[in-house]
């Protein structure tokens, strides 16, 4: 192999692609050629580093310089200064890595990375996901080799059981137990499937793993297949993830070429083949029975359980269905042992969890934390806090199926049990931070709007119930709510949870229930006082001029799209409330803070 003196890692995950990493990459390679460094410096396109807010991201080793928000124009400077002359371009460094006394600070010392432990994401942002040799160079396929040549299937299952790994898709069912059920189930044919139908708004953990480390998922599925006695697998991934699908297909082709998928793997007589199935992006297809239906070629609708897929799954055969993140942990557990994995986390929740951090937080991105650290640590230390000096109000975990965690539970250690106890859930790992400017009635309406759209319609509690619940919320936010609507809302929420067929309906009212539980006053303010304390619900607020502050500059009158502000020059202006469309432009443009929301 050629030896390169420097490796330039450039993130090519969806986040950085969106912020323009391809243009940066092209410019960078052109600059390298221009100065004749292309044989000395290796450019590697990796998966997600996690700090998506600062993309495109570039790390140059051996120095470990972390450049953020790199533009194509910056490439010449980086090549000329850093790579040719060895002078780090400090103006482009991620500011957290610059420390005055010691110069460059290691990335693992920054607030964003310090408390993280990367297990499922270990190779994301480190290897080139389109080159199988890179994965192998970082212990890739060694776990499969170990399982096939040194262990029996039941020993593999014992290791996974002992590790305490639980499903990362949201429900948290013990993975080893699931494998054991499928292994014990009778069947001439068994299947291993991967659920990559990540549908929660704001969640992108599974996408990032498939983009950054697709071979880990393939290796883990092969291990699962060996453990339960399957020879065929499917990855069900949504077509809206084109980069993930592309890289996964490359990875499957490479694994087949190397004989790591196919027949007689490692000369042990074990056969396993893998195919991708594209989903059309229906949220319900993330539910396991609906997903299997969809792979079979039917309409993606759930069925009642039991029988569970481990007994009667794909094409009626015993099937193991695991989430992407769950699988990404498996090779490491096989290599490092169950004790290593179970040494991380809390009593009942072992290992780490990946969260997609979004909403009103400084470091929007992907983080992996050991179970048991608190929400406060995630938001304030890793996430860098709420921007613009606003106050933390609540965090939504579990997306439209989960609930909110208010500031009073800011110090709750994150694990499956604790989140359930405060009325939320782990979910697949979306974590949306809300500040004081978010209205909790409006947020509940937002999530419910999503489930109303995504309900498959098979059972009436979900199809009709969520729609009626949505209408109640609409009535409240428009200022027509009555006290009895709140009672109705609570009752209907419970009915939907209790009587829906699948998890989509059973959890659909969770945001409403938990937000009402913690923010009753806010709901009551909408109903009784007809005001929206956060100033979000348009029908309940009005823009007014503060006479003492208005100097009559006429800016507001000029920008008003509805022409409803009147007043002469140097005279106090007035807003005609019946004409006002509440767009807020006047307040934004007023230089004297003379217009306020009420």
């Amino acid at each position: 192999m050629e030896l390169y003196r420097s490796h330039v890692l450039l993130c090519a995950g969806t986040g950085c692609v969106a912020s323009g990493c391809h243009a940066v990459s092209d410019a960078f390679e052109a600059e390298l050629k221009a100065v004749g460094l292309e044989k000395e410096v290796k450019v590697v396109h990796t998966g997600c580093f996690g700090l998506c807010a600062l993309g495109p991201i570039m790390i140059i080793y051996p120095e470990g310089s972390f450049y953020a928000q790199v533009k194509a124009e910056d490439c010449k400077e980086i090549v000329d200064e850093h790579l040719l002359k060895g002078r780090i371009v400090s103006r482009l460094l991620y500011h957290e890595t610059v420390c005055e006394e010691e110069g460059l600070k290691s990335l693992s010392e920054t607030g964003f990375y310090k408390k993280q432990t990367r297990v499922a994401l270990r190779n994301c942002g480190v290897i080139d996901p389109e080159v199988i040799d890179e994965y192998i160079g970082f212990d890739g396929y060694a776990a499969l080799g170990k399982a096939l040549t040194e262990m029996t299937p039941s020993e593999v299952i014992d290791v996974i059981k002992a590790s305490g790994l639980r499903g990362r898709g949201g429900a948290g069912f013990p993975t080893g137990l699931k494998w054991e059920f499928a292994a014990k189930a009778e069947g001439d044919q068994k299947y291993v499937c991967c659920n990559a139908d990540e549908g929660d708004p704001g969640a992108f953990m599974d996408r990032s793993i498939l983009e950054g480390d697709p071979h880990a998922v393939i290796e883990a599925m092969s291990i699962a297949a060996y453990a339960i006695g399957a020879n065929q697998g499917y990855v069900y991934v949504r077509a809206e993830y084109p980069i993930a699908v592309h890289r996964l297909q490359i990875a499957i082709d490479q694994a087949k070429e190397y004989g790591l998928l196919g027949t007689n793997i490692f000369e042990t007589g074990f056969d396993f083949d893998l195919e991708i199935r594209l989903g059309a992006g229906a949220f319900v297809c993330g539910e396991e029975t609906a997903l299997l239906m969809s792979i079979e070629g039917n309409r993606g609708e759930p069925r009642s359980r039991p029988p569970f897929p481990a007994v009667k799954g794909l094409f009626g055969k015993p099937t193991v269905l695991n989430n992407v993140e769950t699988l990404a942990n498996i090779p490491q557990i096989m290599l490092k042992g169950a004790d290593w994995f179970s040494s991380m986390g809390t009593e009942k929740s072992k290992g780490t969890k990946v969260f997609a951090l979004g909403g009103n937080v400084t470091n929007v991105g992907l983080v992996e934390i050991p179970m048991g650290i608190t929400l406060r640590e995630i938001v304030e230390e890793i996430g860098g806090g709420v921007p613009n000096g606003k106050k933390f109000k609540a965090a939504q975990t579990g997306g439209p199926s989960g609930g909110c965690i208010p500031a009073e539970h800011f110090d709750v250690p994150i694990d499956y049990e604790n989140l359930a106890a405060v009325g939320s859930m782990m979910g697949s790992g979306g974590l949306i931070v809300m500040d004081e400017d978010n209205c909790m009635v409006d947020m509940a309406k937002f999530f419910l709007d999503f489930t109303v759209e995504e309900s498959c319609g098979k059972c009436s509690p979900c199809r009709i119930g969520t729609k009626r619940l949505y209408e109640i919320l609409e009535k409240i936010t428009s200022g027509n709510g009555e006290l009895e609507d709140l009672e109705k809302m609570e009752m209907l929420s419970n009915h939907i949870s209790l009587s829906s067929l699948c998890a989509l309906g059973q959890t659909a009212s969770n945001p409403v229930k938990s937000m009402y539980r913690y923010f009753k006053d806010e709901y009551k303010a909408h109903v009784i006082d007809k005001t929206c304390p956060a100033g979000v619900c348009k029908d309940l607020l009005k823009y007014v001029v503060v006479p003492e502050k208005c100097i009559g500059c006429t800016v507001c009158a000029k920008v008003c799209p509805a022409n409803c502000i009147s007043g002469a020059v140097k005279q106090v202006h007035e807003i005609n409330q019946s004409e006002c469309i509440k767009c807020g432009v006047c307040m934004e443009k007023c230089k004297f803070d003379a217009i306020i929301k009420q």
Partner: protein
Amino acid sequence: MKSLAELAAIKDRMKQNATMREDGDNATRIVVGMATCGIAAGARGIINAVTTELAKRDLEHVTVAQTGCIGMCRLEPIMDVIVPGQEKVTYVHLTPEKVAKIISDHVVNGNVVAEYTIGAYENE
């Protein structure tokens, strides 16, 4: 590929990647002065000689970095060899042949090549 041995061979071939992207300080660092003075004196040939030599010997846990002007432009090309836990050794007036000897004697076998060091030069 059909055997574990072949897998291990690929891993071996790729191990430099793992060393390079480690976030640790346990590697020997070779730092070459690459400011204008260094480049003019031939530092580019020196850094190439270093990487070629390392690749030839298949050395792990050695990283090659570059730095700016050390201040002694008349002694360029200059290179530091920093073995963890030991004092930094600075070599001056380098040629590719000297680099080969430094890698084999100092980096591999731990014997500083005294005659090429800055100390030897200053005593002349």
